[in-house]
């Protein structure tokens, strides 16, 4: 059992949904990311998705694109990101961390080398948004050998065959993309979530985490009632981006995660009482 699976099992026992914030490594700087990782853990995150900045992020909207550009301008290279991860693990960051990484970064470093270094840096899993089932067999095997969970994504457009295959092959959880579109905060929660989760649930017993377009505490609360995990990215990145300095960025991120934590836990608590 991986640390990611353990976390979902424990939360299930507690009747809680996992809260999984996303931040871009090196946005605005790597030292800020280091401080943010601890702040997210202390404010109630159950695991963290750490985005590796990429020049051409096809699955991302303007907020994450911009964060990536800033990180790259400020020198967030992959060796430096691995080194930062090793440091935060030495300093005691204990919750699971997954890399959200575009496949070219993995391919260019060499799949084995990238995965070796990720594992040695204390990474627990990988989400590769442009590596669909058809292309992932090799990475999947190499990741498993190193104890890394390769998390597959499913979308509202996924066919029953693809859902079944992701259910067999995904490790840790399944990343359910809430809408047909790119990442980014939306005013309203996608109506596609509930029917999609129902279809995926029928095919697999893996934990299901929902991401894309979740920005407000009430969105997080609504998703927590339906899924095992709630992923919040762009809305958090926006708060970090808008802060006047890095200390304030950490404070605002922490306050935002606390508000989401509360909403997620209360949603389950209320529905348990009502139900």
């Amino acid at each position: 059992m991986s640390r990611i699976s353990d976390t979902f099992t424990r939360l299930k026992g507690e009747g809680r949904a996992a809260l999984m914030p996303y931040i871009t490594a090196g946005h605005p700087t790597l030292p800020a990311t280091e401080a943010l990782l601890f702040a997210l853990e202390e404010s109630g995150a159950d695991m963290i998705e750490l985005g590796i900045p990429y020049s051409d992020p096809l699955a991302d909207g303007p907020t994450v694109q911009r964060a990536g550009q800033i990180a790259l301008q400020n020198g967030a290279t992959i060796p430096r990101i691995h080194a930062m991860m090793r440091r935060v693990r030495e300093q005691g960051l204990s919750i699971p961390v997954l890399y959200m990484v575009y496949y070219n970064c993995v391919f260019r470093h060499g799949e084995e080398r990238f995965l070796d270094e990720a594992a040695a840096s204390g990474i627990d899993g990988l989400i590769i948004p442009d590596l669909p089932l058809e292309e992932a067999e090799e990475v999947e095997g190499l990741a498993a050998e190193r104890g890394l969970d390769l998390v597959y994504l499913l979308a509202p457009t996924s066919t029953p065959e693809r859902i079944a295959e992701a259910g067999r092959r995904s490790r840790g959880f399944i990343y359910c993309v809430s809408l047909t579109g790119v990442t980014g905060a939306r005013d309203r929660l996608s109506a596609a979530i509930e029917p999609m989760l129902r279809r995926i649930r029928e095919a697999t017993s893996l934990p299901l985490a929902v991401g894309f377009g979740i920005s407000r505490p009430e969105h997080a609360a609504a998703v927590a009632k339906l899924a095992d995990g709630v992923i919040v990215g762009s809305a958090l990145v926006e708060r970090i981006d808008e802060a006047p300095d890095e200390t304030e960025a950490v404070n605002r991120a922490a306050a935002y995660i606390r508000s989401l934590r509360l909403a997620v836990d209360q949603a389950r608590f209320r529905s348990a009482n009502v139900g």
Partner: protein
Amino acid sequence: MAKAQTQAAYFGEFGGQFVPEVLMPALTELERAYLEAKDDPAFQRELAEHLAEYSGRATPLYRADRLTGYVGGATIYLKREDLNHTGSHKINNTLGQILLARRMGKQRIIAETGAGQHGVATATVCARFGLECVVYMGEEDTRRQALNVFRMELLGARVHPVTSGTRTLKDATNEAIRDWVANVQNTHYIIGSVVGPHPYPTMVRDFQSVIGKEAREQILAKTGRLPDAVVACVGGGSNAMGIFHAFIPDEAVALYGVEAAGEGLDTDRHAASISRGTKGILHGAKSYILQDADGQIQGAHSISAGLDYPGVGPEHSYLKDSGRATYVAVTDDEALQAFIDLSRLEGIIPALESAHAVAYGMKLAKELGPQAQIIINISGRGDKDVAEVAAVLERKGVVL
């Protein structure tokens, strides 16, 4: 599921489908629709009719006597894709894809464009068939190719300037893919080159292969023998794949792809993905690309907006590694000289993209000597480039 699809999706180790999950069902649908259409005589008849009646095919294979005399080597033939409706080879593909989009019941069309030639060809067929059209174009390119922006708008398309990244073709393609991810149910994405995830590189090559089929028949009819070489410029590489394809089995015919060396291959301002790139993934396919040690895509540079792209179609990478085709590069200055030479010697103003093929074709003709004959693909006409060339010549202090 994985095996059957991966094999057809690859040219050797190149190609594939590196896209978000949201798009995978759409690519499967597209592949199925394309394979059905390809084998449907009614579809092929309809396409042939539009190519003839609307675009004016077959395009001539023209013996360029004054250029041949000037170079003093092989006889040079020009395949006149510039004489297509809209002024370039791009319409061969947009006609094919719009007929396919209609078959699939899509109401909305999106496209990316660099120089604007593909955008114009897409806007044109959308006007012809009454479909909504959105074209993504890098902000930098909207400036360099303002005339084409106006042409697209005149044709009823909405041109969306892209301000992310390097603000050129690479980023326009990213933005078009993001639009497709969001609107995949009602939208067909007409990719303009032999790039992108499977089935695009195969499908676009097939639609462009009419160039080589015609050229092969024409040169046999005119001279009774095959050419010694075929030369075409390569950005993404659609005009080159189009003219190469019919000649691939003819092993005696040398195939030359000409990349943009920009300010020089040893500078960081070029667009020579095959000559100077490394293996990687860009826009859904594995191929040679320009990237740094971390896999970050690097900006390309070329005087020609249409070649200003840090990747290349996966089949070109395969032809390079298998040795069937040879890839060379031509600088901005050499292309500019060829642009002027062809204008002056033949009364044909080529697109700056095509001028790269002309520049290398002239060198090659000289090397091969008078017994040989070659075909240079004139992929488009140069009207769109006249203002840019005038500005560059003025900066250089060149008086014509």
